């Protein structure tokens, strides 16, 4: 029953356009998709943050605060080799000398980094060997999130590396991956089992001193995912990770490293939801991608951290550094993100196009509602010859939120015939929100071709009345219009994620009109 990646995309297209006649035959096999589409509309009437619950799993906590001892504790807890500890300590010492960035177009109270717990792990009962042995409460938690491991396993063919707080709890499909030589495991295990690979690549794309939050992450990262695709291997399934923050006051610092060796291909999915709480929480992840010659990495994110309540209380601070390097010729890195959550988002998944003829892509839907603030976009750094990049950014602002696109296209002197196309659209719902676009363009080579298109539109009363007159209520109309508007981006997602993303768009815009 596993769907190949080609098949997945075909169904996705059917789903998003609604009915694409040439694929009607496949549609019947996947009535689940249509039912999900209905659920999108049904879920619109719910008004509270859907994933706002806290599971009652025993926690192991470190005291609040950050010092060299904290870093040593975390490293020791994970039995890390000396070089890893030294790397963390170096990052920590760099971090001490750095300042929080002030330039993003967001406002939030000053963060007290000594008031954060830097380590929390679910207590292990007896190392679970199969799903049956996993804490039933944990499984129930995943069921509530709508990501039952078993169903995922059977229906979708997605290997799931589920991270609850900081420790990876369950990894599936290891066997099939092992056969192809694919390494997909928690970062903490990779440090033990593949120290050479980790040491070679960690920090090679995002150096420890890259920015304030990257330095912090490097010092205290708890866990994350490690992926290595060997030469010439097309990863047989979509790799998927779900993150959750599950302990009060627990900052979460994920570290992900994906290496696609020559001529390989991997599609990686990351999605998150977080329980409701009052205190603000810091989430500062680092993701590094390395694509060697002729390799392709597709990285998709659905981000739904708790955005805070309608009055702007609580919510996650999401300060993420994501960057990929197209190291080899003809390599390709594609970022797709659907950002609906977090109180404050600060995130610019970027591509360093070093290899000649390499390609970078960025597809983004960022939704802000109520008091949410997002400053997100991308950086495309053209270094190699004939490098190409494409940026499609769709911002959606509602309530009294502020949504900023910030993007840099930089063409270096030796990047002959580089090409960029950027499309930045803003959709406003209501008249109290803000949409801002900050495109930066630096060209040092006269052969470059750079195109930028931008539009701003508004869901106005005329459109809503037209939909109402056809029997479509306002919430459903907003969901319909927003999903249509975001279609170019949603089309880039694998099907399972597209379904989830559509639900999230609808849910996060509840109550935004009238």
């Amino acid at each position, binding site marked *: 029953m596993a769907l190949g990646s080609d098949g997945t995309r075909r169904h996705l297209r059917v789903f998003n*356009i609604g*009915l694409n006649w040439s694929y009607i035959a496949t*549609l019947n096999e996947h009535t689940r998709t249509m039912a999900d589409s209905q659920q999108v509309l049904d879920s619109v009437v719910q008004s509270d943050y859907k994933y706002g619950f806290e599971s009652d799993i025993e926690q192991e906590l470190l005291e609040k605060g950050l010092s060299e001892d904290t870093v040593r504790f975390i490293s020791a807890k994970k039995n890390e080799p000396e070089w890893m500890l030294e790397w963390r300590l170096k990052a920590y010492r760099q971090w001490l000398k750095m300042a929080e960035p002030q330039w993003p177009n967001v406002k939030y109270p000053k963060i007290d980094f000594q008031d954060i717990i830097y380590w929390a792990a679910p207590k292990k009962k007896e190392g679970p060997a199969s799903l049956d042995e996993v804490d039933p409460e944990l499984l129930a938690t995943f069921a509530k999130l709508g990501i039952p491991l078993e169903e995922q396993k059977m229906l979708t063919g997605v290997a799931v590396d589920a991270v609850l707080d900081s420790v990876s709890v369950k990894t599936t499909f290891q066997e099939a991956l092992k056969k192809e030589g694919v390494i997909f495991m928690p970062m903490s295990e990779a440090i033990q089992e593949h120290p050479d690979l980790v040491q070679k690549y960690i920090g090679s794309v995002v150096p420890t001193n890259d920015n304030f939050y990257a330095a912090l992450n490097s010092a205290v990262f708890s866990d994350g995912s490690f992926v290595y695709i060997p030469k010439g291997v097309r990863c047989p399934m979509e790799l998927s990770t779900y993150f959750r923050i599950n302990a009060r006051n627990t900052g979460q610092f994920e570290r992900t490293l994906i290496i696609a060796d020559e001529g390989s291909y991997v599609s990686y999915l990351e999605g998150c939801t977080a329980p409701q709480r009052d205190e603000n929480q810091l989430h500062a992840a680092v993701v590094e991608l390395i694509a060697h010659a002729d390799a392709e990495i597709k990285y998709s994110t659905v981000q739904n951290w708790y955005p805070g309540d309608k009055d702007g209380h609580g919510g996650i601070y999401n300060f993420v550094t994501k960057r990929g390097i197209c190291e080899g010729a003809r390599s390709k890195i594609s970022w797709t993100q659907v950002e609906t959550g977090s109180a404050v988002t600060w995130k610019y998944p970027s591509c360093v196009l070093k290899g000649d003829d390499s390609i970078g892509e960025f597809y983004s839907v960022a939704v802000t509602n109520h008091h949410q603030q997002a400053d997100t976009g991308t950086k495309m750094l053209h270094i190699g010859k004939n490098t190409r990049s494409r940026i499609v950014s769709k911002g959606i602002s509602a309530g009294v939120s502020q949504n900023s696109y910030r993007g840099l296209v930089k063409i270096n002197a030796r990047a002959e015939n580089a090409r960029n196309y950027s499309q930045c659209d803003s959709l406003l719902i209501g008249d109290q929100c803000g949409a801002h676009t900050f495109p930066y363009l630096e060209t040092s080579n006269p052969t470059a071709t750079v195109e930028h298109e931008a539009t701003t539109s508004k869901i106005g009363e005329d459109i809503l009345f*037209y939909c109402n*007159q056809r029997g479509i209520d306002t919430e459903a109309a907003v969901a319909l219009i927003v999903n249509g508007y975001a279609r170019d981006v949603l089309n880039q997602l694998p099907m399972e994620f597209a379904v989830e993303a559509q639900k999230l768009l609808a849910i996060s815009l509840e109550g935004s009109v009238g």
Partner: protein
Amino acid sequence: MSLLKINGLKAGVEGKEILKGIDLTVNPGEVHAIMGPNGSGKSTLASVLAGREDFEVSGGSVEFLGQDLLEMSPEDRSRAGLFLAFQYPIEIPGVSTANFLKTAVNEHRKARGEEPLEPAAFLALMRERMKLVEMDPSFLQRSLNEGFSGGEKKRNEIFQMAMLEPKLAVLDETDSGLDIDALRIVANGVNAQRSADNGIVVITHYQRLLNYIVPDHVHVLWNGRIVRSGGKDLALELEAKGYDWIKAEAQVEA
């Protein structure tokens, strides 16, 4: 039971009264034409019936299939079987005509306690109904009304009407901006939907549409009131003589 029963309806916008007491009854199987010069209140009547919030009802009542129409939300009016063909259909970028209609039809079905239509059955139904207005199936995948010509938009309205199968359709100047061929196509599409069970209210400025959609009753709206009602011959009389004589007559009566 009558489909629509309007009694002494008064409505306006921002304190200005536009409809000054409308009485109109539409029974199943009937086609009514409402004619009148610009600014007489024709489109306001259509908007008030559909429930547009910009207009404030200040008096009178409207019954639709025995229900108090004015108490219903616009979407409930639609689901109960009231359809408005817009004078200026709205463009919705990114939402295909097929997806829009699928959502609308399934909302109607849900209101009736029915399951959503199977995709294949829905496709077949759309293709069949498009033929009524000679629309090419390629329109289904295009964004709703985006880049459609004026005539294509109006045909799309009548196609939507055919998909939703309303009890009462109000066509607001559906003939405006149509060339003679498009007018014939649109009229044929409407005529194909006439039945003993449903009613149609045709709002128009010109008589020529009524050559194709032949009404049972013709009403002349002027200055917020229906000042004259008659059979289909009244439309021909108006075409020949213009509206001035009606205005003069109405002023004498007032």
